[in-house]
């Protein structure tokens, strides 16, 4: 479903991802954890081609791109496989809640306006935003904006959803409900990759956890093994730094 072959990426001379090889299967809920600067977010963004790898091959769904040779057309096909939920929501500020979701349906998926609105309304109801269809993002709380962000990402019928620290910009009061919503989507069998620092949530939602540090995959395991008997000293050191309550 998702495959990375020898993927490397550096920013201004600093290598953030070193020769990553990774395979993720359909239906898996994979969480990337690790200290800041480990390359988690970069890895996630590569899959949506928001970052361009220096070398290696990336496969998402039916599309494979080689960093050494690709066209704009390849990039669009790759992006069509996945969708992203952002840390800072990134809702289209000049569009209403409804328009944020219909935008890609009309412009990219070429649905008729009416069909797009019906689909968007259904999704927005599902995420609990059915009563705010005509509000602009500026008038929504962080939690509400992130619900719309999730509806927008669901609308493109992605094969895999990418969540980039979806709750870390939220006020604590909204974190629970967003995590609950993500869990619901996971329960419906959606393939997901998440970057998150909410360890308790990670443990309960993930089918697989990958610990990254200094741009390398240090440990790749199921939640129980990773949290309770990690084989890696580096993972143990990272987990020990987290407060007792978080683990």
């Amino acid at each position, binding site marked *: 479903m998702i495959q990375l072959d020898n993927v490397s990426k550096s920013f201004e001379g600093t290598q953030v991802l070193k020769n990553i090889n990774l395979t993720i299967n359909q239906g898996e809920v994979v969480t990337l954890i690790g200290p800041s600067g480990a390359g988690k977010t970069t890895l996630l963004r590569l899959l949506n081609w928001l970052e361009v790898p220096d070398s290696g091959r990336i496969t998402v769904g039916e599309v494979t791109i080689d960093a050494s040779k690709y066209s704009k057309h390849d990039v669009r096909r790759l992006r069509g496989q996945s*969708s992203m939920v952002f840390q800072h929501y990134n809702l289209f500020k000049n569009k209403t809640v409804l328009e944020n979701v219909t935008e890609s349906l009309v412009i990219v998926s070429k649905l008729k306006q009416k069909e797009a609105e019906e689909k968007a309304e259904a999704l927005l109801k599902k995420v609990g935003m059915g009563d705010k269809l005509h509000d602009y993002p500026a008038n929504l709380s962080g939690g509400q904006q992130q619900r719309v962000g999730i509806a927008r990402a669901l609308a493109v019928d992605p094969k895999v959803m990418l969540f980039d620290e979806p709750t870390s910009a939220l006020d604590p009061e909204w974190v629970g409900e967003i995590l609950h919503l993500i869990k619901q989507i996971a329960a419906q069998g959606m393939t997901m990759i998440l970057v998150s620092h909410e360890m308790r949530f990670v443990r309960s939602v993930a089918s697989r956890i990958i610990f990254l540090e200094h741009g390398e995959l240090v440990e790749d395991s199921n939640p129980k093994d990773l949290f309770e008997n990690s084989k890696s000293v580096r993972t143990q050191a990272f987990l020990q730094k987290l407060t007792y309550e978080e683990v």
Partner: protein
Amino acid sequence: MGKIFDPVFMIQSFPEILKALPITLFIAFVSAVIGLVIAFIVSFIRYSNIRILSPIAKAYISFIRGTPDLVQIMLVYYGIPLFLKAINEKFGTAFDVNGVPSIAFAIIALAINAGAYMSETMRSSLLAVDSGQLEACYSVNMTRLQALWRVIIPQAIGIAIPPLSNTLISLIKATSLVFTISIIDLMAQAKIVGSRSFRFFEIYVVVSIIYWVICAVVAFALSKVEVHAKRYERKVDQ
């Protein structure tokens, strides 16, 4: 000796001077529109960093910023006829160098001038839109052009209006230079009326009031446009 300052004469000369208002407004309006078109193209070239064209655009902006408006008007006024002449000689065409009305030179010069300033405003407004907006467009698989057109540019317009309003006001004021290439605008009309009566001060008070009113109206109108363009940012009490 008459009065030192003659308010009655001043008020009476308003209608005479206002006869030239349409010319001033026409020059300002047409050069603003052409300037906006130039600015749109140039800002896009710079924003997208298009090869070869981008450095040319940069040089154009630098030149316009670094030379006085009056000098630019002179360059166009004397330069374009020479250019046409050269073309006539080279290609055997028969452009009538003397048939070009002065007002065309004025509009070309002011449009080129305003275009440079406005393009910088537009470029920085495009850059001021949160980069997350473009990423969100990409994440739902919109193309770059779709993203620009539907998300980035609409937001940049709201950001650009206050500085564009300043440029437009500068442009309106710069039209007062076109009397130097024998166009009867407000300023030239003032000179004519003034030289008849020798009450130049009163006449220039009249002219200044007219410019002031035009600029105030334009600034007010554009502030309303700005509110409309940024309507999505307005917080509504729930």
